[in-house]
């Protein structure tokens, strides 16, 4: 084992897609770290690049530039063969349990597939492990020879989780693992993921658009907007003291199922700007209630304002340097 500070260290990661209209900046200069045994929640609206970030880290999308270090080891540029070995340690759970399972394979075949591919286990070992995994994720043994279409969404997602756990990974990208599920089932899956983390020391990158879920589940939260990281902080800090105007608006938009605690909504005007050939301005500027001239001139850097709390906003950084500025104070001013 090498020396490393963080289990995962992503720096200046970029992923551009060439489309007819130009270059689509899906992930644009994103840097963050995740420590062992922790969960980083990544939130943002659809199209903000959160899934692409997750996939670029696993090199399911080849990053355009930047570096991803796993256990201190650079993985961008590794050969296919080396990458394949590493994949055992880095897994992904997909969003749609209806589309991510091969309909022609039985449950046991689906869960066994990663072990077969790794080529390190004997047939009876695999069988035993499939049995164990099904127990771990709470699938009854009678489902061993059923096909995915016979099962409901919650059970299918459990299969996806069992498959991701098959090779004893250290790090799992959970790409909206509960979005397609009913709330009662969603809670079952979230609790399962939590228990697995406690028992196996797993590290998660938890991608979701549901802020209530991420607040419940993550240690740190990163907010993405149009391919960029705009704020990152410990969950509690982010919810109590959001600094970026976008984060604040996003938090205020969550419908709260509690009659006594309704939040005051801060509207975001207009639609998202195009990520194709974006100008070098703050990308939130057009929708931002606090936009000033400086915001249209350059893109703000992500800076650490208090320990663990990173923000990319000209206004916040400037006011922070001068003293006490906060988003909500500005809103009332």
């Amino acid at each position, binding site marked *: 084992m090498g020396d490393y500070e963080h289990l995962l260290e992503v720096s200046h990661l970029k992923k551009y897609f060439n489309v007819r209209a130009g270059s689509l900046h899906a992930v644009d200069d994103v840097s963050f770290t995740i420590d062992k045994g922790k969960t980083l929640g990544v939130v943002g609206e659809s199209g903000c690049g959160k899934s692409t970030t997750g996939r670029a880290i696993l090199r399911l999308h080849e990053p355009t530039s930047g570096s991803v270090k796993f256990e201190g080891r650079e993985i961008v540029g590794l050969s296919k063969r080396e990458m394949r070995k590493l994949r055992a340690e880095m897994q992904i759970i997909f969003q749609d349990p209806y589309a991510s399972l091969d309909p022609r394979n039985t449950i046991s075949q689906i869960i066994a597939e990663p072990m077969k591919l790794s080529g390190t286990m004997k047939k009876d070992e695999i069988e035993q492990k499939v049995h164990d995994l099904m127990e771990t994720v709470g699938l009854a043994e009678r489902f061993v020879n059923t096909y995915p279409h016979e099962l409901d969404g919650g059970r299918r997602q459990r299969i996806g989780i069992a498959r991701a756990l098959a090779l004893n990974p250290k790090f799992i990208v959970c790409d909206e693992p509960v979005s397609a599920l009913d709330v009662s089932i969603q809670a079952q899956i979230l609790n399962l993921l939590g228990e697995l983390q406690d028992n196996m020391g797993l590290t998660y990158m938890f991608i979701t658009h549901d802020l209530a879920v991420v607040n419940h589940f993550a240690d740190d939260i990163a907010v993405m907007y149009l391919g960029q990281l705009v704020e990152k902080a410990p969950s509690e800090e982010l919810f109590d003291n959001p600094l970026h105007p976008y984060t604040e608006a996003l938090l205020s938009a969550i419908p709260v199922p*509690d009659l006594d605690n309704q939040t005051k909504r801060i509207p975001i005007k207009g639609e998202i700007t195009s990520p194709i050939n974006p100008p070098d301005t703050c990308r939130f500027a057009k929708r931002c209630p606090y936009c000033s001239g400086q915001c249209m001139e350059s893109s703000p850097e992500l800076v650490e304002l208090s320990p663990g709390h990173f923000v990319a906003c000209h206004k916040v950084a400037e006011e922070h340097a001068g003293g006490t500025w906060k988003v909500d104070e500005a809103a009332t001013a």
Partner: protein
Amino acid sequence: MEENKVLDEVKEVAEDTAKEVKDAAENAAAEVAEAAEKTAEEIKDTADVPASEQDGKAAPEYVLEIDDLYVEYDTEDALVKAVNGLNLKLRHGETVGLVGETGAGKTTTALSILRLVPDPPGVIKSGSIKVEGQNVMELSEAAMQEIRGNDVAMIFQDPMTALNPVFTVGEQIAETIRLHTDCTKDEADEKAGDMLEVVGIPRARGNEFPHQFSGGMKQRVVIAIALACNPKLLIADEPTTALDVTIQAQVLDIMRGLKDQFNTSMIMITHDLGIVAETCDSVAIIYAGRIVEYGTLVDVFKHTLHPYTEGLFNSLPNIHNRTAKLKPIKGLMCDPSNLPVGCPFADRCNYVTDACKEKLPEQRYVSDTHYVCCTAYDDPNFRLERSKENG
């Protein structure tokens, strides 16, 4: 004797103020003398009709009355009982949230109101659905076509598939207007432009096709179509499920504004109790095709009665208390093709007793506005954990 009995029955079915119930019951009682075999509910309906005719505004008390609705899907494999004895009433300008899991019968109920249940395999077995006092089950297809999109409009869940890709959005809005009103093409186009502005889309974009719009904007177009003829009843089937939170907030604001502006009644089908808290006046919790708890927002959120409702609340991550552990409802929803004799929730319920598995619980009113279907309340001291906490 007989009059008293009918009075009692009327009290049971009418979720209304004491005075209105009394009036209705008196009317009903008067008619009972002539037609003793009629049920109290039918009498109440007939008692209502003359009142509305005199009014001139043609405004029965309820914009929608669903009574004992049963809908089945007769598939090759099994007989799926989607809706099993559902009752729901909706006043003018009221928004009711219909909350439940996938497969609980929410969408089937909505489709039944418009008589759009795919047939075959869907069959509306029994029950009545009255829109503005008119039983839609008895209408001809032509008359039904008049109601759809005009008196009753629906916003479908998925804006990506609800629009026709080969017509501009302006044409699609104008189509509804021309179908239901006597106006020229130009007038309809003009009105379509107005509707786009109502939902916050520049008029000029009416010439664009659906694929040129983002998800949030498509959903706003769908809302514009639904509202084009000022419907009396708007059925919104998970209108924001496919949208991001910030766009969801915008769409909900628009819908709320329209409700205030046009006094439209709304059925908000959703599984998100947060949306219910923000937009609805009353809440119906639906499980296995029946409403298991019904009441005002405060009734259901603060004085929760049904164990299933409690389970839904416990399953939600609470953004104000992030360390609280989620308490999911155990197990899965029962198979609608194989419903148990007793309470369909019994297998998942934390408070289950033997009595629950013997008979289907009946509606039990705890106040004029709030009822629950749960056998556990046979014990007068029974209370949910959640209610104990709420004091």
